[in-house]
């Protein structure tokens, strides 16, 4: 039954116009960034590496698909949550708004199955959005700009990855980004279970993310102490895949914390939804 429910949820998600807003936004934005990089990318690269050129001779194709994709991933991962919340916030609240809880819950399916199928479908949507970002930025980037070495400025070092040492890092980074965005998705579904209008969960999810990011940005002791408990602190840790050597402990910790958040949000949603009186 759960497979059937997930298929139905995915069908419903991909039949809605709002689902494609994220794909269209990425589909427009990323090629625009590619065009900008095509026209001005060398200047940007020169600006970034101006300090290095005094001491090193940089050769090869540094303005390549990998570098462009890295820049795009840096720029967009903070904006993707809105596109995720737009759909995930509607998953339960949308049923309440439309009044379709009544035809759904009066069927012989358990509420747990309904919540689970929505979480799975939401995660699939989220992952497909990240995959779309990967295709648009990395695949098209490689086609337009070709391959080359990847120059990464880490907090305490400048790292240049060889051509053959990059793709697996991107695959894992996008995988990690999908996990991060799934936390956003599950938070939006949790909020979605509390109300009967999708606007609330979308706005609330973004508000939480913005507040957490602001709290993470201030470098004062009291906020430094609570930072480890803010899931937004781990969202950008896909960057760890582009440090050398890999800090596996940090990556595993971040992965576990993000997964734990999904589990907590899922459990909370399940408990709330199982006890919820459907009055819509």
């Amino acid at each position, binding site marked *: *039954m759960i497979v*059937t*429910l997930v298929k*139905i949820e995915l*069908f*419903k998600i991909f*039949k*809605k*116009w709002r689902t494609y807003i994220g794909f269209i936004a990425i589909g427009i934005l990323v090629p625009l960034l590619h065009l900008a990089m095509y026209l001005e990318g060398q200047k940007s690269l020169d600006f970034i590496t101006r300090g290095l050129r005094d001491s090193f001779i940089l050769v090869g194709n540094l303005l390549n698909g990998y570098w462009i994709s890295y820049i795009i991933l840096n720029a967009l991962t903070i904006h993707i949550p809105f596109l995720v919340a737009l759909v995930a916030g509607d998953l339960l609240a949308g049923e309440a708004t*439309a*009044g*379709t*809880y*009544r*035809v*759904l*819950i*009066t*069927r*012989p*399916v*358990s509420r747990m199955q309904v919540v689970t199928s929505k979480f799975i479908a939401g995660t699939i949507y989220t992952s497909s959005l990240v995959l779309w970002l990967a295709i648009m930025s990395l695949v098209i980037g490689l086609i337009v700009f070709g391959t080359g070495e990847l120059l990464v400025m880490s907090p305490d070092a400048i790292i240049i990855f060889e051509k053959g040492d990059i793709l697996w890092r991107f695959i894992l980074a996008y995988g990690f980004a999908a996990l991060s965005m799934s936390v956003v998705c599950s938070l939006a579904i949790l909020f979605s279970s509390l109300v009967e209008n999708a606007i609330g969960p979308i706005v609330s999810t973004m508000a939480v993310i913005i507040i957490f990011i602001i709290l993470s940005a201030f470098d004062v002791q009291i906020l430094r102490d609570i930072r480890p408990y803010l899931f937004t602190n781990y969202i950008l840790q896909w960057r760890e895949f582009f440090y050398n050597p890999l800090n596996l402990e940090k990556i595993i910790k971040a992965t576990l914390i993000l997964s734990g958040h999904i589990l907590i949000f899922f459990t909370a949603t399940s408990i709330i939804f199982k*006890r919820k*009186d*459907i*009055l819509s």
Partner: protein
Amino acid sequence: MNSSENVIEISGLTKHFKNVLAVDELEFTVLKGDVFGFLGPNGAGKSTTIRMILSLIFPTSGSIKIFGKTLLDNRKEILSNVGAIVEKPDFYGYLSALKNLQILAKISGKVVSQNRIMELLELVGLKDRAKSKVKTYSHGMKQRLGIAQALLNDPELVVLDEPTTGLDPQGMKEIRDLIIRLSKDENKTIFLSSHILSEIELVANRMLILNKGNKIVEGRVDDLLKSKVLKVTVEVDKPEEVKNILQNTQWYQCIESIQGNKFYFNLEQEDIPALNKYIVENGILVSALVPVRSLEDYFLSITAQAK
């Protein structure tokens, strides 16, 4: 009565919404093959009760048994044999009627063929619009689609919450005919809530009246109506004289209103011949005497008593 013939058994059913008591210690039984009318004014607790029967909301206390099994422990099994419309019919507006039914069929707990879906769409007169998006449907069309979805899994028990709301007279008649057909031809048990009281009178064999969450009365429609007050119109040739001769009698209190030469009485069935005799014996010509057996009047009188 054999308990296996009880389709719905409600016992001590109570629902509080914070400090509001919506349903209070409700007890009733729906028997196999019943068309059970569930009546009550707005806010009586009808929809709350229906939502509890369909597990949309949870009782504060009490028990619900359907097909002899407790709903709480056998929800899936029970719901696979129940079809329902709850309040207004809502569907996924961005999908066609056909797709809506196909989706719901997949989770109906039974194998529902494409033919069955098309038959139902034909039954409710939507076959030609099967592929139109539901958001383009009128309320009446959605209501008919609601009936189709309620019958998808060929349920033994059909719960219809105000199924004729928003329908035109022709549509209302079609639904009534369908209910009678489902009951008589397909031996389904129908739990029908309605605020259109004549609807219940026309189709139900048993009924319950609910007011402020409390059961006012339950029984066979015929029996309940037989013993109760009728609205009787008496047309006379000398209304002023009638007024005078009734002035000091028990009948005077039974007059609801007087319009020209028509007197409207609220009378018990057995009092009608005596009234007629009394008026005629006083030399007044009674040109018409029309008793109206209205469930609505009965309903109003019974709920007024409850107040």
